[in-house]
């Protein structure tokens, strides 16, 4: 510890810290632009100049490390003169038309100019003009002349997002911040540069000129998009969500937000929103009042339950639903005598049901990921499925953690990867088994008998060696592994690998309530049918909660035909989606900003939130709709006054962390031989197609990540079928066929075709896994 005195205040701080950090600890604010606690030090803005005793000239507080007995003066005559001088220089080229600038009212330059600048500028000459460049549909550089060259955006892209997509070109007066010539900024974290920009040079394109910061009300909320449970600040005006910004939470999202979370709010105001209950009568949709619609649903559902049997009713919810909604849905279904309820729509292997010791979760706190020194990530489109977790792992990798990957594609994770094994989907379990065997050898322990046949390859040995050398090992299974037809085996192998090296295994939760669904008991349990079974053997009646079966289910064509075959489909949805073709009733329910609710994040953090705005039109919170349906169907125990009452009943006063357990009991490792020949489908869910809200956000849909999916294969595979990249191909899976454009991807293993799921283009296909055939169209 080092003792420093700042403006007469005594501070004790670790060696190696900067003066600006010491001042922060003492509660003294030093004006700054280029300094940011999460980024490296540039010391380019010179705004934080302070006086240090015995130093002849003012020094930048961000780039000066503390030393014992240092005396710093932040408001001495020398410091103030330096700050005023720097401010005058910064304003030399900065336009002074704040009233037209979108940053006005929340601008660091504006605030600091008032606080630390002089009243007027002596500069009368012409100002520099920087022409705007198109860097994508999310970030506007329309006002690039306002840039003060602090390079925060450049450092963010390099250090946090992992890829240098922005840079400073030219020198001196001509220096300007730009992306590579003609290139856009495509990072899935690009929106953060808007927050980082201390001036109005980088602003939000969808938000541009739509409101002023001072007229927005801010409401705290939680992101529904992935399992992380990112804390959001929803900014509203006139009962409309105008934008979404991050709320800093060091344990979850730090101070970042992924673009999906930042820009998908546009989908909340989409023209596709369902605003009145609708009933289909004689093939025509009629708008009706709520009591009529609810009465109709209650009658129709009880009729199916009574005539065709209770088990003919199936309830499907997306894991993006709130805990309360999931709890009431399963309570309603069970009240009707049906155990057919599920929220794991994209899962295809349910053999772990009944063998789980608890709800599957991350297995550790999110913050622990930063401390891990060896990681094995299996089956995860990490950057696209979990942008902020990927960022955290990237920081760990920068600090020296070894990241090992087992996956079926070789996407650039923008971080240093120690070893990677890119194998076909059906060889994934085998690869993990090889790692397990090599690890046992490494640790000089006896391997499981079932691994007798397994021969560990060199990659597996390298990964095992890496894992064996770690003290804090994390073995993580991504969305792809959870959706895998051998998910239970993968879980078991991950569990064994983690156990051998004293680490922890866990799942990267796919959606906001991938853990919460288990706690709400929204999985079928004994005697019930899971999501896949319910669709494979069509039910007579379905209740859909937020779900769009052809996009949200593991097998889109199967799901769709089950819907068409059903006598009754009740869709509780915020949007008028494809259900207009097959549903009988559409009930408008509120998305997360318009209802109170709870998400249980992948690390088991229970986060409740309140509605930020009133529901649009006649839409109502789904928990209220389900509550009334419960009353109408005479199901006992449906007299809740608030969503909090539902949550408390769902969690039952249990300690949530004690309900979480990744251990699989009574399951043995079974090594199945890899299938012979054929082309296996590798289906990712494109980042901006993963949930209903993001699908309807226009700006996100214009990004590169939202480009129309292509059928990607290794160049050699393409050659085999005589197709060159860019040509049209017919992709078929069983009887289902869609037309796509072929693309070459040298990172794919042989025998694999990468065909995305969850997208309208590929909704005509079947299961996310399994064989496909690709031929010239």
């Amino acid at each position, binding site marked *: 510890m080092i003792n420093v005195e700042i403006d007469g205040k005594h501070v004790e701080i670790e060696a190696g810290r900067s003066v600006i950090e010491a001042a922060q600890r003492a509660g003294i604010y030093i004006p700054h632009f280029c300094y940011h606690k999460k980024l490296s030090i540039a010391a380019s803005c010179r705004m934080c100049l302070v006086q240090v005793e015995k130093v002849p000239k003012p020094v930048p507080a961000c780039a000066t490390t503390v030393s014992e007995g240092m005396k710093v003066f932040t408001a001495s005559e020398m410091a103030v003169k330096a700050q005023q001088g720097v401010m005058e220089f910064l304003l030399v080229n900065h336009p002074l*038309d704040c*009233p*037209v600038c979108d940053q*006005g009212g929340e601008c660091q330059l504006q605030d600091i100019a008032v606080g630390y600048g002089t009243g007027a500028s002596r500069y009368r000459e012409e100002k520099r003009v920087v022409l705007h460049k198109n860097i994508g549909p999310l970030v506007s550089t*329309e006002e690039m002349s306002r840039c003060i060259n602090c390079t925060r955006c450049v450092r963010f892209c390099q250090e946090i997002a992992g890829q240098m997509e922005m840079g400073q070109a030219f020198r001196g007066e001509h220096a300007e911040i730009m992306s590579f010539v003609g290139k856009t900024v495509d990072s899935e974290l690009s929106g953060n540069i808007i927050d980082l920009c201390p001036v109005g040079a980088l602003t939000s394109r969808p938000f*541009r*000129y*739509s*409101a*002023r910061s*001072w*007229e927005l009300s801010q409401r705290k909320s939680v992101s529904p998009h992935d399992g992380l449970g990112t804390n959001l600040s929803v900014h509203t005006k006139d009962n409309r969500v105008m934008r979404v910004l991050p709320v800093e939470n060091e344990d979850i999202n730090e101070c970042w937000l992924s673009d999906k979370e930042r820009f998908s709010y546009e989908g909340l105001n989409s023209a596709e929103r369902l605003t009145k209950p609708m009933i289909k009568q004689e093939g025509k949709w009629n708008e009706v009042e709520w009591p009529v619609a609810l009465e109709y649903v209650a009658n129709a559902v009880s009729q199916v339950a009574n005539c065709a049997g209770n088990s003919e009713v199936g309830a499907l919810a997306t894991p993006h639903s709130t805990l309360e909604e999931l709890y009431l849905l399963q309570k309603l279904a069970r009240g009707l005598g049906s155990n057919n309820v599920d929220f794991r729509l994209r899962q295809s292997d349910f053999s772990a049901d009944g063998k789980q010791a608890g709800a599957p979760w991350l297995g550790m706190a999110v913050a622990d990921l930063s401390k891990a020194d060896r990681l094995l990530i299996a089956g995860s489109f990490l950057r696209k499925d979990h942008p902020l977790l990927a960022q955290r792992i990237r920081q760990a990798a920068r600090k020296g953690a070894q990241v090992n990957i087992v996956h079926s594609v070789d996407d650039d994770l923008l971080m240093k990867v120690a070893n990677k094994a890119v194998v076909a989907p059906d060889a994934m379990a085998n690869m993990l088994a090889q790692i397990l065997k090599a690890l046992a050898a490494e640790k000089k322990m006896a391997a499981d008998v079932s691994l007798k046949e397994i021969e560990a390859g060199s990659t597996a040995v390298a990964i095992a060696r890496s894992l064996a050398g770690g003290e804090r090992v994390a073995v993580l299974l991504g969305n792809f592994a959870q959706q895998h037809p051998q998910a239970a085996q993968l879980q078991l192998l991950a569990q064994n690998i983690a156990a051998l090296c004293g680490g922890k295994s866990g799942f990267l939760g796919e959606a906001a309530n991938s853990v919460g669904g288990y706690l709400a008991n929204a999985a079928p349990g004994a005697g019930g049918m899971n999501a896949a079974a319910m669709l494979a053997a069509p039910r007579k009646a379905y209740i859909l909660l937020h779900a769009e079966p052809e996009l949200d289910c593991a097998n889109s064509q199967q799901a769709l035909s089950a819907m068409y075959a059903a006598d009754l489909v009740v869709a509780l949805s915020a949007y008028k989606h494809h259900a207009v073709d097959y549903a009988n009733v559409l009930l408008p329910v509120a998305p997360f900003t318009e209802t109170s609710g709870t998400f249980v994040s992948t690390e088991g953090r229970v986060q409740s939130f309140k509605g930020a705005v009133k529901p649009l039109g006649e839409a109502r919170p789904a928990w209220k709709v389900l509550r009334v349906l419960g009353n109408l169907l005479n199901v006992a125990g449906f007299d809740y006054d608030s969503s909090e009452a539902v949550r408390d009943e769902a969690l039952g006063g249990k300690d949530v962390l004690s309900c979480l357990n990744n251990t699989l009991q009574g399951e043995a490792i079974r090594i199945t031989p890899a299938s012979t020949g054929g082309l296996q489908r590798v289906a990712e869910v494109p980042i901006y197609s993963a949930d209903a809200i993001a699908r309807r956000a226009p700006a996100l849909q214009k990004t590169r990540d939202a480009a129309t999916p292509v059928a990607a294969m290794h160049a050699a595979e393409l050659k085999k079928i005589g197709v060159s990249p860019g040509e049209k191909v017919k992709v078929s899976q069983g009887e289902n066929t869609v037309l796509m454009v072929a693309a070459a991807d040298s990172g794919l293993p042989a025998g694999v075709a990468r065909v995305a799921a969850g997208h309208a283009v590929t909704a005509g296909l079947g299961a996310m896994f399994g064989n496909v055939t690709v031929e010239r169209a």
Partner: protein
Amino acid sequence: MANNFFKTFLLLELLKGLSVTGRYFFARHITVEYPDEKTPQGFRFRGLHAQRRYANGEERCIGCKLCEAVCPALAIKIEIAEREDGTRRTTQYDIDLTKCIFCGFCEESCPVDAIVETRVFEYHGEKCGDLYYTKPMLLANGDKHEEQIAMDRAADAKYR
């Protein structure tokens, strides 16, 4: 007692009172015979609002919303959007004159002298809503009185 008697007898108090009347009868008249006559107005007179244009016909308002923020009576309502040419413009600019207290903060806060208060004070509404001025009405006011507004701004310029 005697003093009081003389005062009463000689109507001294009456004459004293009448002298005031007489003095004013012959003095210069200061009553303004409205509407035939009007009081003079200063160049900072705060009457009916108007929105101004530049000489080329372009509206001055850039939709910064400072007037809306500063208005103590919450009489101003503004909605903004990006116009086709990429500039920031209002799509709605309403002043509710029944709320307005004519404090002049709006014109003081305006960075481009777009919203101004004119010398017009003789206006009326016959039914509810007539005094709710929208953007076209305000721009029409500005067009009508631009000459006077420009003169008043010029006269005020040296004090700003």
